[in-house]
C-alpha cells in the first residue's frame, strides 16, 4: 500500500513537517496530527464551512484540501487568530454582539470573516452574506454575525475586557444587578478562540476509533454474520455483533422499550445498527466494516403510515403483540362535546395538512468517547448529549452496572434541538468496545449516519376541523393526526400526545377531540425536535384559522384576539395556564409590523401573515416515573470568598443556559457575574438535572440554582449579622457586599463574610432543588403530557415576496413578540428567537428528508438537505412582552421552543396573502406554489389550495 510522505506545513506562523498519507486532508492533519481541534469537522464534504481555515489568505474548506496540496502554503487556523492571548477585534465583536450560540460553526465563521475583512475592511451586509454563505449555523445566529462582522473595526485597538460584565443591552427598569442584563455569554471567550472542547476534540492517549455497520436493507432477518475477515484485518482490535451486546431492550419511553444496541435478529430500517468495530484509526475501522459479511432474508417493507396500517402489512415488531397493525401509540381524547360544539357553530371548516420529515441537523455530529478505569470496573463516557441523566440511566440499565460506577461527562455540545436527547448506539458501542479493547474508544457519526439515526420531526398527516360562531369564537375543534414514527419509539409516545395537548394552550377551545396514532414504518426513528410534535399541528391550526377568518370577513388578528388565552385559566385538557400576555403579544406585533397599512394592501407578490405559538417551560413530569427533583444545584463558595462554583448537570447546548444559570446564581448570591464559575457537567461533580429538553432549564434549573444561592446567602447573612450586630433578616447581599437593607452603609464585604464562615464551619456549600408542582394535569391517560409549571406565548408577523413566475419565496421581514416571563438575558433571548425564526423558515420552505427506493434516504447530507444560510436572513424585529411568572425564577419562563411555533403558520399565511395560493403540505416549495398559480390562472379562481390534492 502507499506509504506516508513528508509534508511541510506552515501553520499559524510555525513550520511543521508531518509524515502523512497522501489521502490525509488538511483538516485531519490539523486536528489529528497537530492537535489543533479549534477547526471543526461538521460534514467532511465542503457543505458546512465549520472547517474553514485561511490558506495563503483565502478561505478554504480544510476538509476538501489534501494536506499534501497545502505544502509550502501559509495556513491560518482559529488558534492563530488571537495573538498572545489578545482577541482579534473580529473575535471581540462576535463576543460583544452575541454572535455565538453552540459555537461549533464559530471558528469557521470567524475564519471566513477574517478572509473577507483582509480584502475589504468595511464590508456591506450583502458582501458579508456572500462571504459567509458557506458557513452553516443551525442556531442561525446569522443576524448577529452580520452585525459582528460589519462592526468589527470598533474593536480595533481595544483590549478585550476580561470582565464579561459589559452590557450589550442593559435593562434599567428593574432593580436587578445581573438578571435581565445582556451580559456576555459565559462560554463566549472559549468559543471564539476554538478552545471550547467538544466531545470529538478530546484526545486521550491510546485512543482507538469505533465505527458502526448499518443495515443496507430496510427490513429483514439476519441469517448469518461473518466477521472473521474484519477481525483478521491488521489494526482491528475488536468486532462486535448483536451476539456480543446485552439482550436488554431500551428506549426513552419506559412503556415502549423497543431498541437494542445492535440488531440481534431483525433489521428495521436502512442504517439499523448491525455490528461495530474498534480499530487503530478511522480508515482501518471503515475498511473492517466492509469486510463484514451479512446474509439477510429480506422482508417486505413499508415506508408510510398508511401502508403500514393496511391489513396484511408486514409487521415491524412482530415479537411484541401490543404493536399489532404497526400501531405504536394511540391517543383518544375528548373534552367537552364536539358534536354539540359543531352544531352550535355558524361555520365549520375542515382541511387536511401534511407535514415533513425535517431533521435537526445540529452542526456538531454526535460523538462519544469511552474509557474504563479502576481495573475495568468504572466507566467514564464523554458524550455530545442534551440529557446526561437519561444517558447515564440508559447506560446503567443496558450495561447492567450501577449508575454509581458510571461517570458521564458532557463537554461543549454543538447544538441538539432534540437530536441528542437520548442514548445512541455510539454511546453503548463505545463503552462495550472500550471494555473489550482495554483502550479508550472514540466514535463519531458521519453526517449521513446522523440522518440515518435521525430522531427528527415526525411527519404528520393532520385532519383538522374547526367550528366557529360568526364573530369568530371557537365552538369546537376536532384534530386527527397520524404520525410516521419510523422503526422505533424514541420520544414518539410523548410526541403523539404533544401533537394534541398543546393546541388548547393558545386559544380557548370549549370542546376538543383529539385522535393521535403513531405508526411504525421501516424508516429511521422520529423523535423530539424543537417544539416537540407541535409545529405541524400549529401550522395547520394557524392556517385554518386564517381560512376561516377570510370566510367570515374577519381580520386574522381579530379572530385570534377573540379566542386568545388569558392568565389563570385552565384548558379543556386540564392544563393550568398561569402568567399569560398572549393578547399583548398580538397587539404589539400588529402595531409594530404596520399590519393595518399592509394587510391586503401590498402589491401582487408581496404578502403579510400572522402566526402564533407557545410551549411548555419544562415538562411537568419526568420521562420515567421518579420522585427525584427535576433539577438540583450546589454552590460552593471558594475559601477566600472571591469566587463561587456552581454545580448543576444542566446542559448548555448552545441555547445559553449556562449564562442564564450563572446570572441567576450571581443575582441571588449578591455577587458580580464574573465571580461565578460553572463546574463541568460531570455526574461525579454535579447533581442531577434532567437535561435540555422541553425548554426546561431556565425555569427548573434556574429555580434550583436560586434556592442553592439562597441557602448560601442565608449562611452568610448569619455570619454577617453576628459581625454587624443586627438581625439576619435585615440584611441583603448585592454586588459583593452584605449590608442592612435600610442602611446600606452598614455592611461588610461578601468575601469577608464568606471567609469567616469558612473559618468557623469549613466549606460553605448551598444546595437547592426543584420539583414541579404536584398533581399537574388531568386524571386521564396521557394527561401528564403538556403539563408544565408555566407556558410561553408568541405572535409573529411574516412579510414575504413571492416570485410569481418561479414560486420562489423570499422572507423579507419578521416581527416577533414573545411572552417568556421575565427576561433573564435579552441578548441570548433575542438570539434564540432569531434562530427559531430562521430554523422555522427552513422547515416551512426548504426542508424534508426524502425517502428513496428501498428506504434509502436520498438527501442525507447538507448538500441536498438544504438548511437556511446567512443569505436567507430576513430583517428581524424581536421583542419581549414580559409577564411575571410566579413559578419561575425572577418570574422567567421559556423561549427556545415556543418561538419556533408561530413561524410556519405566519409564513404560510403571508404566502397566501401574496399570491392567493394556500399550501397545506410542508415544505411550501416553489414548485407547489407555481402549481397553485397555474391553477389560479386556468380556473380564474381568486384563491386555490395546494396540498394532498390541488383544488380551486
Amino acid at each position, binding site marked *: 500500500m502507499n506509504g506516508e510522505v513528508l509534508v511541510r506545513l506552515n501553520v499559524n506562523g510555525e513550520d511543521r513537517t508531518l509524515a502523512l498519507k497522501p489521502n490525509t486532508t488538511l483538516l485531519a492533519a490539523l486536528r489529528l496530527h497537530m492537535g489543533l481541534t479549534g477547526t471543526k469537522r461538521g460534514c467532511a*464534504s465542503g457543505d458546512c*464551512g465549520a472547517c474553514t481555515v485561511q490558506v495563503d489568505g483565502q*478561505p*478554504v474548506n480544510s476538509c*476538501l484540501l*489534501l494536506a499534501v*496540496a497545502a505544502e509550502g502554503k501559509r495556513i491560518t487556523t482559529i488558534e492563530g487568530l488571537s495573538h498572545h492571548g489578545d482577541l482579534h477585534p473580529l473575535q471581540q465583536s462576535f463576543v460583544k454582539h452575541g454572535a455565538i450560540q453552540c459555537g461549533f460553526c464559530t471558528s469557521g465563521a470567524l475564519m471566513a470573516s477574517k478572509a473577507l475583512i483582509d480584502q475589504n475592511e468595511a464590508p456591506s451586509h450583502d458582501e458579508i452574506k456572500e462571504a459567509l*454563505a458557506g458557513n452553516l449555523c443551525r442556531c442561525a445566529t446569522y443576524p448577529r454575525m452580520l452585525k459582528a462582522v460589519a462592526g468589527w473595526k470598533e474593536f480595533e485597538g481595544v483590549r478585550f475586557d476580561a470582565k464579561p460584565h459589559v452590557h450589550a443591552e442593559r435593562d434599567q427598569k428593574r432593580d436587578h444587578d445581573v438578571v435581565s442584563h445582556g451580559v456576555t455569554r459565559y462560554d463566549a471567550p472559549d468559543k471564539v478562540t476554538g478552545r471550547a472542547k467538544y466531545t470529538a476534540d478530546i484526545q486521550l492517549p491510546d485512543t482507538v476509533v469505533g465505527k458502526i455497520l448499518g443495515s443496507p436493507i430496510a427490513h429483514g432477518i439476519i441469517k448469518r454474520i461473518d466477521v472473521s475477515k474484519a477481525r483478521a484485518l491488521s489494526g482491528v482490535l475488536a468486532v462486535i455483533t448483536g451476539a456480543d451486546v446485552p439482550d436488554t431492550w431500551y428506549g426513552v419511553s419506559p412503556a415502549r422499550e423497543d431498541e437494542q444496541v445492535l440488531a440481534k435478529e431483525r433489521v428495521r430500517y436502512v442504517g439499523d445498527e448491525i455490528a461495530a468495530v474498534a480499530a487503530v484509526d478511522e480508515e482501518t475501522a471503515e475498511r473492517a466494516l466492509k469486510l463484514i459479511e451479512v446474509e439477510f432474508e429480506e422482508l417486505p417493507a413499508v415506508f408510510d403510515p398508511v401502508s403500514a396500517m393496511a391489513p396484511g402489512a408486514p409487521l415491524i415488531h412482530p415479537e411484541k403483540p401490543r404493536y399489532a397493525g404497526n400501531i405504536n401509540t394511540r391517543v383518544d381524547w375528548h373534552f367537552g362535546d364536539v358534536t354539540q360544539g359543531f352544531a352550535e357553530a355558524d361555520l365549520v371548516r375542515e382541511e387536511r395538512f401534511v407535514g415533513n420529515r425535517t431533521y435537526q441537523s445540529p452542526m456538531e455530529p454526535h460523538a462519544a468517547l469511552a474509557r474504563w478505569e479502576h481495573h475495568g470496573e468504572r466507566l467514564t463516557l464523554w458524550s455530545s448529549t442534551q440529557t446526561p441523566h437519561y444517558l447515564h440511566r440508559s447506560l446503567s440499565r443496558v450495561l447492567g452496572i450501577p449508575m454509581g460506577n458510571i461517570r458521564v461527562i458532557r463537554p461543549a455540545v454543538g447544538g441538539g434541538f432534540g437530536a441528542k436527547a437520548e442514548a445512541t448506539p455510539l454511546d453503548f458501542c463505545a463503552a462495550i468496545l472500550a471494555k473489550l479493547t482495554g483502550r479508550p474508544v472514540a466514535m463519531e457519526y458521519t453526517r449521513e449516519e446522523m440522518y440515518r439515526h435521525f430522531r427528527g420531526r415526525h411527519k404528520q398527516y393532520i385532519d383538522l376541523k374547526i367550528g366557529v360562531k360568526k364573530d369568530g369564537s371557537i365552538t369546537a375543534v376536532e384534530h386527527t393526526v397520524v404520525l410516521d414514527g419510523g422503526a422505533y419509539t424514541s420520544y414518539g409516545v410523548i410526541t403523539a400526545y404533544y401533537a394534541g395537548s398543546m393546541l388548547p394552550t393558545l386559544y380557548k377551545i370549549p370542546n376538543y377531540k383529539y385522535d393521535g396514532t403513531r405508526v411504525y414504518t421501516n424508516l429511521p426513528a422520529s423523535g423530539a425536535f424543537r417544539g416537540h410534535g407541535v409545529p405541524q399541528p400549529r401550522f395547520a391550526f394557524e392556517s385554518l384559522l386564517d381560512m376561516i377568518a377570510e370566510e367570515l370577513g374577519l381580520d386574522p388578528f381579530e379572530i385570534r384576539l377573540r379566542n386568545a388565552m388569558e392568565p389563570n385559566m385552565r384548558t379543556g385538557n386540564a392544563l393550568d395556564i398561569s402568567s399569560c400576555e398572549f393578547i399583548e403579544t398580538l397587539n404589539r406585533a400588529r402595531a409594530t409590523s404596520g399590519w393595518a397599512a399592509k394587510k391586503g394592501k401590498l402589491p401582487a407578490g408581496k404578502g403579510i401573515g400572522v402566526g402564533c405559538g407557545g410551549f411548555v417551560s419544562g415538562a411537568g413530569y419526568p420521562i420515567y416515573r421518579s420522585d427525584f427533583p427535576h433539577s438540583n444545584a450546589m454552590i460552593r463558595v471558594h475559601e477566600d470568598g472571591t469566587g463561587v462554583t456552581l454545580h448543576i448537570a444542566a446542559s448548555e447546548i448552545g441555547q445559553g443556559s449556562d449564562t442564564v444559570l450563572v446570572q441567576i446564581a450571581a443575582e441571588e448570591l449578591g455577587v458580580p457575574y464574573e465571580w461565578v464559575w460553572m463546574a463541568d457537567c460531570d455526574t461525579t461533580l454535579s447533581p442531577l438535572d434532567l437535561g435540555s429538553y422541553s425548554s426546561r432549564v431556565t425555569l427548573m434549573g434556574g429555580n434550583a440554582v436560586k434556592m442553592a444561592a439562597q441557602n448560601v446567602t442565608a449562611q452568610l447573612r448569619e455570619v454577617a449579622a453576628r459581625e454587624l450586630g443586627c438581625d439576619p433578616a435585615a440584611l441583603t447581599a448585592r454586588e459583593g457586599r452584605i449590608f442592612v437593607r435600610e442602611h446600606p452603609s452598614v455592611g461588610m464585604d461578601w468575601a469577608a463574610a464568606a471567609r469567616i464562615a469558612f473559618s468557623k464551619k469549613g466549606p460553605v456549600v448551598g444546595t437547592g432543588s426543584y420539583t414541579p408542582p404536584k398533581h399537574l394535569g388531568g386524571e386521564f391517560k396521557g394527561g401528564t403530557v403538556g403539563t408544565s409549571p408555566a407556558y410561553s406565548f408568541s405572535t409573529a408577523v411574516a412579510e414575504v415576496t413571492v416570485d410569481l413566475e418561479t414560486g420562489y419565496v423570499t422572507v423579507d421581514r419578521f416581527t416577533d413578540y414573545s411572552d417568556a416571563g421575565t427576561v433573564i438575558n435579552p441578548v441570548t433571548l433575542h438570539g434564540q428567537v432569531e434562530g427559531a425564526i430562521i430554523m422555522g423558515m427552513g422547515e416551512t420552505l*426548504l426542508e424534508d428528508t426524502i425517502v428513496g427506493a428501498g428506504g434509502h434516504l436520498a438527501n442525507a447530507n447538507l448538500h*441536498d438537505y438544504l438548511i437556511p444560510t446567512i443569505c436567507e436572513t430576513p430583517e428581524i424585529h424581536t421583542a419581549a412582552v414580559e409577564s411575571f411568572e410566579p413559578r419561575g425564577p425572577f418570574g422567567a419562563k421559556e423561549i427556545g421552543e415556543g418561538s419556533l411555533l408561530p413561524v410556519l403558520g405566519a409564513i404560510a399565511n403571508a404566502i397566501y396573502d401574496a399570491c392567493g395560493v394556500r399550501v397545506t403540505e410542508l415544505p411550501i416549495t416553489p414548485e407547489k406554489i407555481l402549481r397553485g398559480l397555474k391553477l389560479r390562472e386556468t380556473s380564474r379562481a381568486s384563491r386555490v389550495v395546494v396540498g394532498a390534492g390541488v383544488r380551486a
Partner: protein
Amino acid sequence: MGMPDFSYLRPGSVADACALASRLGDDATFIAGGTELIPDFHRGRETARQLIALDGIDELRGITIAAGELRIGALTTVAAVAASALVRDRLVALADAARAIGSAQIRSLATIGGNFCRAVACADTPPAAIAGEARVHLIGAHGTREVAAEEFFLGPRRTVLAQGEMLLAIALPAQPAGSGSSYQRFSRRKGAALAVAAVAVRVTMAAGRITGARIALGAVAPVPMLVSRAAAMLEGERPSRALFADVAAVCADDALPITDLRGSAEFRRELVNVLTRRALDEASARAEEARS
C-alpha cells in the same frame, strides 16, 4: 466515509502530466481544486488510485489576452474568474456564473478546468462559456486540439478528453460589437446551492435589431446545451416581450430535463421558460448599453 489510499504525483509540466496520465490509464485521475473529486472519493464514486496533481504547473494558471483571445488557464480558480475585470468586461455572464458556484471557500479552491472536466450537468460556467462562443484547448500525447465548448461534453461526467489528454485553457474570442450577456439561474436557496435550472444568453444588437444570439441551458439536460433553434428565431428581430416569450417557450421545449431531488422535469421546463426571458431582457439591455 473516509477516502481510499492513493498515491499523489505532482508533475512539474503539462507534458509530464500528460505522459503520466497516458501511462497510468484508468487507475489515475487529475486533481485540480479537488472540490468535486474529494467528495466523490467519500461517496465511493471516484476510484482512482493515483492522483496526478496539477497545482505545480504554473502555465495552467492565469487569465491573459493574446491575439484578441481571452485565455483562462484551466487551473484558474473560480474565485479568480469571478473577480477578473477582463472576464467581466468580455462576458459578464461568465463572471456571474463563476460567482454563483458554491461558497467563497469552494470558489477559492475550485478551478474552471475542474468545473468543465468533472462534467456535472448543473455546472455553472459551461453554459456561460458556451453562450460566449468559448473554445477549449486540449493537449495530449498527440498534441493539442481545440473544441467548441458545447462539443466538449458527451454526457454526465463524460467529456471528449481522451486517455492522457487534459484541458489547458478556456478561450473566449472577442465578443461581437454590440453584445450583451446574462446568466440566470434558479436554486432552492440563496446561499451555496446547486442550480435547478440555468440559462446563459449572449445577444448582439445593431440599430435596434438583434443580429445574433446564443442561448445555452444548464442543469436541464445531460450536458450544457446550446439551443440554436431558439436563438435563430431572434435574428433580425427587434427585442419585444412577445418575441422573448416565444423564444423562451422553444427553449423550454428543447430542454431535456429530468426529475430529481431539486425539482421535477415539468418545473424545470417552466424555469427555463422564465429564466430565458429574464436572460434575454438583461442581455439585450446590456447590448443596447454596449452600443451607446
